[in-house]
């Protein structure tokens, strides 16, 4: 991997630097809210990055990724509710639960292809949504308030805004590094090979669905981590966060930024959530602008923002 200096890399570097320095800006200007806002953006960026791994590189269009956000979040919330506040227990449970869920639904869903795959992942996510709504001990539809954030001993204080921000940012960069290692490994190349030509990869002896499944589970686990972070960020978890529209929003973030581009989902998430925040401040009819914008991006800007930036190099 040779690092090139081109527009997209410059933008990525600027965004990364901006994210690193944001707490400083927040301290200097006294604008706490911008830190709160970007903590949420970073967590969603991690979720979008995990979706990008299977969508952009694996060719698996999961329409049920919000389920992992819920599972990771409920693992933290339920354990906290039952009096287990240690993050050293909560977080591994969140990751393992997400991985197990991904393993089971992945094994079943990967029998299907195309639109059928989109629909079966949606079906499983909806089932998870209804199960969460039915857990009356944990608030059912009303959700569950988390009174104490995960406790990591004296290591890190999640209630401290700046520390929590850097933890989320660390998870995001760590997640992206992991994804970068995966896609450049032999395993990752096989997965991408299966995406472009499954029959050929089968013919040379790769068991396509096993590779797909492993990739699917890794993606689900990373998204489960995002779920644990999100629950800590909102101090609250409810089934509403697992509804199918949330899965749709994650897909939009990935496509906005550029599918199959390492940093695309991060850029896309920042763009999508900031645009939503800004438009909703100007007008209640923000969807009247957002909707056609989405259509235009799909029609004319294939490859999303990263694709557009890439064109500057060529043009």
């Amino acid at each position, binding site marked *: 991997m040779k690092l090139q200096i081109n*527009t997209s890399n410059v933008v990525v570097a600027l965004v990364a630097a901006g994210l690193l320095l944001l707490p400083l800006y927040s301290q200097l200007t006294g604008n706490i*809210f911008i830190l*709160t*806002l970007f903590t949420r953006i970073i967590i969603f960026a991690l979720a979008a990055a995990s979706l990008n791994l299977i969508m952009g590189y694996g060719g698996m269009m999961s329409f049920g990724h919000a389920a992992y956000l819920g599972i990771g979040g409920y693992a933290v919330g339920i354990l906290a509710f039952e009096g287990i506040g240690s993050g050293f227990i909560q977080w591994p449970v969140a990751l393992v639960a997400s991985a197990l869920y991904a393993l089971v639904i992945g094994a079943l869903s990967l029998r299907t292809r195309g639109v059928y795959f989109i629909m079966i992942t949606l079906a499983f996510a909806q089932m998870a949504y209804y199960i969460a709504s039915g857990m009356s001990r944990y608030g059912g539809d*009303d959700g569950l308030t988390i009174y104490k954030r995960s406790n990591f001993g004296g290591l890190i204080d999640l209630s401290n805004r700046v520390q929590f921000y850097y933890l989320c940012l660390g998870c995001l960069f760590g997640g992206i590094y992991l994804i970068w290692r995966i896609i450049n490994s032999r395993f990752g190349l096989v997965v991408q090979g299966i995406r472009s030509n499954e029959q050929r990869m089968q013919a040379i002896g790769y068991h396509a669905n096993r590779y797909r499944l492993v990739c699917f589970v890794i993606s689900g686990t990373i998204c489960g981590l995002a779920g644990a972070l999100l629950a800590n960020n909102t*101090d*609250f978890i409810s089934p*509403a966060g697992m509804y199918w529209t949330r899965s749709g929003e994650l897909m939009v973030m990935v496509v906005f930024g550029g599918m199959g581009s390492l940093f695309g989902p991060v850029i896309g998430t920042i763009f999508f959530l900031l645009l939503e925040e800004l438009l909703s401040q100007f007008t209640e009819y923000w969807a009247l602008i957002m909707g056609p914008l989405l259509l235009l991006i799909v029609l004319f800007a294939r490859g999303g923002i990263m694709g557009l930036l890439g064109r500057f190099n060529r043009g």
Partner: protein
Amino acid sequence: MKKTFWLAGAMALALAQPALGADSIKIGFVSTFSGPTAAIGNDMRNSFELALDHLGRKMDGKPVEVIYEDDGQKPDVGKQKTEKLIQSDKVDFIVGYIWSNVLLASLKTAVDAKTFLISANAGPSQLAGELCSPYVFSTSWQNDQTPQAMGTYMNQKGVKSVFLIGPNYAAGKDMLAGVKSTFKGQVVGEEYTVWPSQLDFSAELTKAKNSKAESIFVFYPGAAGVQFLNQYAQAGIKAQIPLYTAFTIDELSLPLQKENALGVPGAQQWVNDLPNPENKKFVEDYRKKYPNLRPTFYGAQSYDAANLINSAVVAVKGDTTKKDAMKAEMEKANFKSVRGPFKYGKNHIPIQNFYLQDVVKDADGQLALKTVATIVKDSQDGFHDKCPMK
């Protein structure tokens, strides 16, 4: 490329809104202004604006600034908007909240920041019980209170048996539990429907019809209430089994329910024709300011919220840093409520009357809600014992 930076700059500027002059009273208002339930949020905003008009848009001589935020009926969005209002806009009060789950998600942020939060609708049991807080007040009710009143009314009417139908979510369960706690007759059946996606109630109606129950009780807020009433009337059950309701018929749903709602009773702590001067002024001026619209109980609660805040601001002579004094004043409920006088319990939930409302044709031949009787006086919620506040 330049454009990208320009856009980023514009975004940063817009996010870093300058703090306005400290010499105003700042109020944040979180409600639903988009999506299928936006009509409720609009009514709350209309009523709040009207209340400010009536106050001369000033509280103790200081200008009032209100920032409205849309929660989109999503808990995490509501929480984020609450954070924005408190951290970025630094509001003195935060008002609104239609939905229990949005309120519960936002509650901790407000309480931790010691910002007064006034719920103008949502009334989950936790708010009245273990989650009660010195900084949280309600101008509405606790979920169970309204159906409890309905159960009491059904006893008064001598109803012997009931079939209960409600949506399968927390408020739905609260509502059915509320009726059961006061209704003395027999509950012959209890059905929960999928919320919010179930649209067709034919299976439940058929069961109710065949259960030989003497009455049906339902709780279906918003559009679901319209659907249920349409289907209830079309199935021909209206002539056979009378219906009793909570939060199913209001001024927003009535224009859609039309004749189907005629003669169907409901319980409410506020009705548009309550005979006190404040209420007359509220309803008349509302209809003048917003032609073609009628105020709902959501609006009445928001109108009260503005006046509750005003009473606190006046008591501390505009010095909103005196939180203890403001809390003490609000606990007195020392303002003219459009529902008539009420008291606060130690958990800051109103102790208030509940009325029986019915749908009738008014003088113009239009359908309207009308107070028929007082069902219970000074009803207090059943969770105040769990509230640790003194």
